[in-house]
């Protein structure tokens, strides 16, 4: 079946919501994959799944956690292979996946084009968050610095990279970030160093401009800044193995400051994992990178109609409000379409811009380069 035909079906279903309900009266199980941290898989299991199932009797969501190993990459490759052989991909939606992967997937028509899918809520999506019409941004977050206000007064908290660097050196052992490939908080801290060493201009790095001849030198300049910080980090240059492990060290009072995802930090404070005295601050000269999750739906999905209905559902007011209140994320829709009261309460965390950093070859080069140049730089007594 051609993608256009499938989209037509999606369009027809959405234009007549009652018919969709009738169609759903027969049972359907949506396979929804996630590769995100536990806060996001819990959000799907505890909030989105029950709400969507209540609104669509007969449809259930199977939240599949695909962490580690190949993550969602192998699932998407399987869907592409299934598309080529005309079989079912056993995949309806991936909550967060780079639509550029697998290579050639978009050209083959693997992912539903949201601009043409006729979602009722697509017009409300924040234009800043749309990278490609094949990924549907429904939640965002950004890395910021979380610190212990009992040890560092908010007035003295660093606001630029230079101040942060000075603070780390003046307070040895009080800062730690995780290995850049093991979680975005440390990953985007490393990318912020690379931005710093390359004129603080995120537009220099694009998904398609990695050059094996010149790019490694750009990364090396950032690694040099990090190697300079290494001896002043926790335990003379230790790096945790994930976002949650850094939060654990901050919670145990072992360090004073860490980079953290805004949503994870807010949730940790709400749940009491981090104390009320935890401060959050963003660098003002250039923010740490972040991004919006890109939801994709396979055009050959077994339950295409229901999957497209789910995509529309996660952009609804109720779910977008839950993104803010339940997981401390940024909404995928524009802030001004949400209730004014919500807007005022979260005014401090509403970002004006979110720098991003491309994946692909850049990500591979950062992982390889950081482990070879920065990580071994440990001084142990």
């Amino acid at each position, binding site marked *: 079946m051609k993608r256009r035909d499938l989209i037509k079906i999606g369009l027809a279903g959405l234009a007549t919501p009652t018919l969709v309900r009738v169609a759903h009266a027969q049972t359907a199980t949506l396979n929804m994959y996630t590769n995100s941290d536990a806060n996001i898989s819990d959000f799907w299991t505890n909030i989105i799944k029950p709400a969507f199932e209540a609104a669509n009797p007969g449809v259930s969501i199977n939240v599949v956690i695909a962490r580690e190993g190949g993550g969602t*990459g192998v699932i998407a490759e399987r869907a592409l292979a299934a598309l080529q052989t005309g079989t079912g991909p056993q995949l309806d939606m991936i909550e967060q996946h780079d639509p550029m992967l697998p290579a050639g997937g978009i050209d083959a028509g693997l992912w539903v084009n949201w601009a043409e899918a006729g979602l009722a809520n697509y017009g409300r999506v924040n234009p800043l968050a749309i990278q490609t019409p094949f990924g549907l941004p429904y939640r965002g977050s950004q890395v910021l610095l979380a610190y212990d206000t009992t040890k560092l007064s908010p007035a003295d908290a660093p606001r630029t990279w230079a101040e942060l660097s000075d603070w780390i050196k003046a307070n040895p052992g009080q800062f730690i970030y995780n290995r850049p490939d093991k979680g975005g908080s440390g990953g985007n801290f490393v990318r912020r160093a690379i931005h710093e060493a390359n004129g603080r201009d995120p537009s220099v790095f694009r998904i398609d401009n990695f050059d094996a001849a010149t790019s490694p030198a750009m990364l090396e300049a950032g690694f040099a800044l990090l190697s300079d910080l290494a001896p002043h980090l926790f*335990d003379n240059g*230790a790096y945790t193995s994930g976002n949650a492990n850094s939060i654990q060290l901050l919670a*145990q009072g*072992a360090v004073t400051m860490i980079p953290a995802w805004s949503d994870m930090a807010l949730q940790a404070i709400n749940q009491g994992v981090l104390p009320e005295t935890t401060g959050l601050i963003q660098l003002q000269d250039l923010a740490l990178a972040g991004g919006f999750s890109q939801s994709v739906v396979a055009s050959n999905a077994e339950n295409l109609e229901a999957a497209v209905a789910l995509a529309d559902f996660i952009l609804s007011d109720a779910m977008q409000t839950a993104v803010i209140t339940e997981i401390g994320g940024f909404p995928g829709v524009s802030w001004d379409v949400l209730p004014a009261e919500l807007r005022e309460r979260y005014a401090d965390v509403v970002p004006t811009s979110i720098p991003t950093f491309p994946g692909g070859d850049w990500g591979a080069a950062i*992982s*390889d380069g950081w482990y*070879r140049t920065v990580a071994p730089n440990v001084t142990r007594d």
Partner: protein
Amino acid sequence: MGTLIVWPIVRAILDTLIVTGPEGTRVSLASYRFFFNDGYSLGNLRITAWTTAVSVAILMTIALPISIYLRFATGRVAAVVQALAIFPLFVPSIILAYAFIRVLGPNGMVDIILNSAGLPRIRSPYLTVWGPVIGFVWDNMPLSVVILMAGLSNVTNHAVEAARDVGAGRIAVLVHIILPRIWPSILVATSFVVLGLFSAFTFPYLLGPAAPEMMGPFMLRTFGDVMDPVQARTQAVVTFAICAVFGWFYVRSIARNRARAAA
């Protein structure tokens, strides 16, 4: 077994040797040449060997006295010791790793106890090479104790009593009566633990340092993040070759036991 184990191994080895370039397909040792000339890769192999050797040495030093004690002791204390030695078998290693961080990590339970007793805090093994070693020793204790105790059942009370009657001391009994009988079991336990440790993932990932990495996390990262499947397979083949040596120890020991039983 052929399709699930042997064929993937053969394919992995072939993939690392056969290079398809512009001038056609040919056999090349380039990926191995890179591995054995790359200081970073060799460092990772070295730390894997070091961690394995140190863990096995510590493990045997602790497991052997425990199993000998359990073989000859009776009563309630022995039952408690046995339960404690076997307990880690029922705790998943990921739980163990997080418990480790809470207890031995910075500002963990040990630090709090030391601090309340007015003692200086210890330097936490978390995120150092000793982190995985402690995890491995704890995690592999039950397997080693069980294998060694099985071997010790070959040591009859008669033999020990006979040796005592002719005036042998404790050390003499250990060296001349017990060790020769359980030597195959020590070899089997060592092989098992080495095989498990060499490609271990959870403990080095959660408790070890960022660099050098053990082969398990290194292979996964090379495959998934550096996106270099050929180099990841090369690392896997090197790891496999080393493990095969210990596998051979194990097979030889089993074969000898069978031959002895048949004779």
